[in-house]
């Protein structure tokens, strides 16, 4: 419906413009309804249902829920885990349904659905003409985990790269692909480094237990490790680690207390931001110690930063719509609270 409407507007607008100002060449044609704003992936109810994607315009005046369904009249599928991008394409990873929906990131019109060659897909990243997707395989088998290589011109899985168990988030830095092995239902403690020119595993780097989030700063990767949780019986401390990508070595490590398990690392300029024990902390990348006081109070399911703002989601009781809170990082004050879909697990920026 929205597409029809926007196309109609577009035609009408174009007609007006062409008829009135025929020699004006500088018309900016929007790339789609969802160009000027950000997207929220909502995992959806855990067992019986479909995840969704919400759109919020930059000025917060437009909020559209279930935009994939609105545009394509079909459901995304069960547990919308994450989203990745390449050019104007968005790759929505649907975990339980074992598929990736490829859409135009600005119009959300479907382009392709990748179903073959995936097994428990988690996260997506791209480099050149290839996409990379972490897969757990059988979550109870620690030997069948892999990164699927997707040929972005055909939207098919062209090869797989076997990796250690529990690959989760992945990020491109200094022409290599870094995969954090959070450890699936268990715990792992390494990064895999993948050579994207050969699509082969290059090396692994031990970083700390349960690496759950990563950001790139210049040619360094900051990795936040949550540490083994207490129920494992072998509780270990959280750790913030800096990896130099030139030689893939850990050059700095900040240990948290054994009972502290931080998560959701993001970066705003040169400021690292993470969530710990119901509070948000910020640390200058150059500072020599972990911060002791927090900047914002709140326990968040996912966090992202963009343009001096923190986007933090709250999944509530995990059985109803969640919320997104946006904070101005210059004052650490809240700008707005926005209702999302069920279990908002990721925030992605379209411009």
């Amino acid at each position, binding site marked *: 419906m929205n597409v029809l409407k926007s196309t109609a507007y577009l035609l009408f607008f174009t007609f007006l413009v062409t008829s009135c100002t025929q020699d004006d060449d500088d018309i900016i044609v929007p790339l789609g309804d969802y160009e000027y704003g950000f997207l929220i992936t909502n995992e959806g*109810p855990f*067992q*019986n*249902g*479909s995840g969704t994607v919400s759109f919020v315009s930059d000025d917060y005046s437009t909020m559209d829920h279930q935009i994939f369904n609105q545009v394509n009249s079909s*459901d*995304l*599928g*069960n*547990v919308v885990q994450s989203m990745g991008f390449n050019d104007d394409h968005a790759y929505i990873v649907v975990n*339980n*349904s*074992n598929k990736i929906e490829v859409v135009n990131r600005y119009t959300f019109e479907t382009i392709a659905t990748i179903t073959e060659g995936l097994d428990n897909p988690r996260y997506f990243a791209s480099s050149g003409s290839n996409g990379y997707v972490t897969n757990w395989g*059988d*979550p*109870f*088998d620690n030997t069948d985990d892999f990164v699927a290589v997707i040929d972005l011109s055909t939207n098919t899985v062209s090869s797989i790269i076997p990796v250690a168990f529990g690959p989760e988030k992945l990020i491109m830095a200094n022409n290599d692909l870094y995969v954090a092995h959070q450890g699936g239902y268990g715990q792992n403690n390494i990064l895999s480094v993948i050579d994207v020119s050969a699509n082969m595993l290059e090396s692994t780097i031990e970083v700390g237990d349960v690496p759950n989030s990563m950001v790139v700063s210049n040619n360094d990767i900051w990795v936040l490790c949550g540490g083994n*949780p207490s*129920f*494992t019986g072998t509780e270990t401390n959280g750790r913030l680690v800096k990896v130099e990508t030139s030689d893939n070595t850990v050059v700095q490590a900040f240990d948290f207390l054994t009972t502290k*398990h931080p*998560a959701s690392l993001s970066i705003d300029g040169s400021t690292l931001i993470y969530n710990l*024990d*119901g509070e948000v902390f910020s640390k200058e990348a150059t500072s020599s110690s972990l911060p002791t006081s927090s900047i914002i109070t709140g*326990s968040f*399911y996912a966090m992202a930063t963009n343009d001096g703002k923190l986007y933090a989601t709250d*999944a509530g*009781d*995990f*059985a*109803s*719509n969640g919320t997104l809170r946006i904070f101005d990082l210059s004052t650490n004050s809240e700008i707005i609270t926005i209702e999302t879909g*069920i279990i908002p697990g990721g925030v992605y920026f379209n411009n």
Partner: protein
Amino acid sequence: MYAQLDSIQHLNEVLVIDTKLEDYSEGFELIQLSDTLIARNSVSLTEVLNFNSTLYFKENGYGMVSSPSFRGTNASQTAVIWNGIPINSNLNGQTDFNTISPSSFNTIIIRSGGGSTQYGSGAVGGSIHLNNTIDFQNKQSSELKLSYGSFSTIGGVFKSRFSSDKKYIDLGIDFISSENDYEYIDLNRKNENGNFDKLNIAANAGLNFGKSTLYWNSNYFLGNRNFSGTISSASKDRYKDITTRNLLTWNKASNKWNNTIKGAHTFERYRYYPQPENNLYFEGQSTTYLGDYQLEYNVNKDLKISSIINYTYIKSKGSNIGVNDRNTLATILLWKHHINEKLSYGINLRQEFLTNFENPFLASFDVKYAINKWYSLKANASKNYRVPTFNDLYWNSGGNENLNPETSYQAEIANEFIWNQFRLNITGFYISSKDLIQWQPGVDGMFTPLNISKTENIGIELSGNYSKSFKEHQLNLVFNYAYTSAKDLEKNKQLIYVPYHKATGAFNYNYKKLSAYYQLLFNGEVYTTTDNYGILDGYSVSNLGLEYLIQEKSFPIKIGIKLNNIFNTYYENVAYRPMPNRNIQTFINFKF
């Protein structure tokens, strides 16, 4: 033949081993489902109750895990009582109603309202009583039923009993297997990975020594199910479960005194295979030993007092719960007084000891008043509870050993009107529950159960029955309707998967050797999210059946055919899980 038509009876008198049930529940509504009715929905207890009561079922696809909501309470607040013994799982607190073979029991009784004083944990919304009757008459009979139908469904029931004035023994074997690969209407897909097979064996025996009697009841269930997926994601997981139950009862009665000693052993085990091809599974198992002594004293013909001491030992172990056990000692006092022909009341008290929780003191009061020939009134009020399950307490990770029992207060008033062949019941109920156990995410994102939620359920139930016969024609009409408002008091929203409206109807017709029936089930819309934004549409499903008695005497043979979902309605009972399209089931039944 007439008795067959009167398919739902409000209980008058039945002989059951669980004597507490009728003696001390006069101010409660008891509804007994007849053999005929059970036979018409014999695939599972879910189906029997779904089509014949106001209980609402949440079924994860046909034949899959099925949990009840009785008066809007949660699945672990409906107690299932097998021959007087509670059998809800110690692991998750519920009975999966698709693992109970209804054909294995002589009577199934629905007791509405709180019953924790008599039946312990979980009898909050109501309880379902599965009873095997043992009687000492000279009788010998056997029955074999074979059925076949859509989705490669094959079933068989064999029952046999031998009894004399001294001895009784029966055996029942019940088997069903189905590919369960029904079509998802208009979706051009099938129900994948939904096949199941179930085997139930029941044996009961009794010895009559004159002044005393000895009974033995046993039941063995073996289930092997694949769990079907949803519209949005396929599945391949498998689930195997085993339960065994054994009960020995000794009873000695004199004029004034009645002694009953019971000893029971029950065992449950499940194995869950998330990826069956690698044969790895998660397991949970639990064993219960129960000893129970009841001393009943008949003060006079109108006043009866019973004291019970009950000791239960439960030991559970599993992949996620370690090895843990629990001791519970309960003392119960039951009082029944008939003031006069019209008015009677009962008082039930229960105090528990030994458990690691706050030991609850429970009480219930009930009264029955037969105002006149056509109108009688029942009312009751009770305090009930549910103890935390072993999963709640010990689950790794998240289990919380500091949980306390859930507590509920409830009251109801039931009006019964009888005019000739027409009976109408109108019941209003109120349930207030607190400290309900709910799994919630903590600051570290880990889910942990807490005693936090509060609910308030208010509702009205209507049920009616009309029978008429002229010459060789017999007609019978039954309906049930419930309006249930079940609110989470913190959010002030209706609880998920509790419909405001549920109705059932049945029309039965008999002519000589032929009987025909029509069944209707209506479930109103339910909310699927706690903020009530997510809605699953309501639906109605109709079944039509025809039965014919080929031969009545010496070697009776009956054949039948049943058309389920005659209008081929697409419906989901749980969101994204379609239920079966139109299908056909047939049977042949021999008695000898």
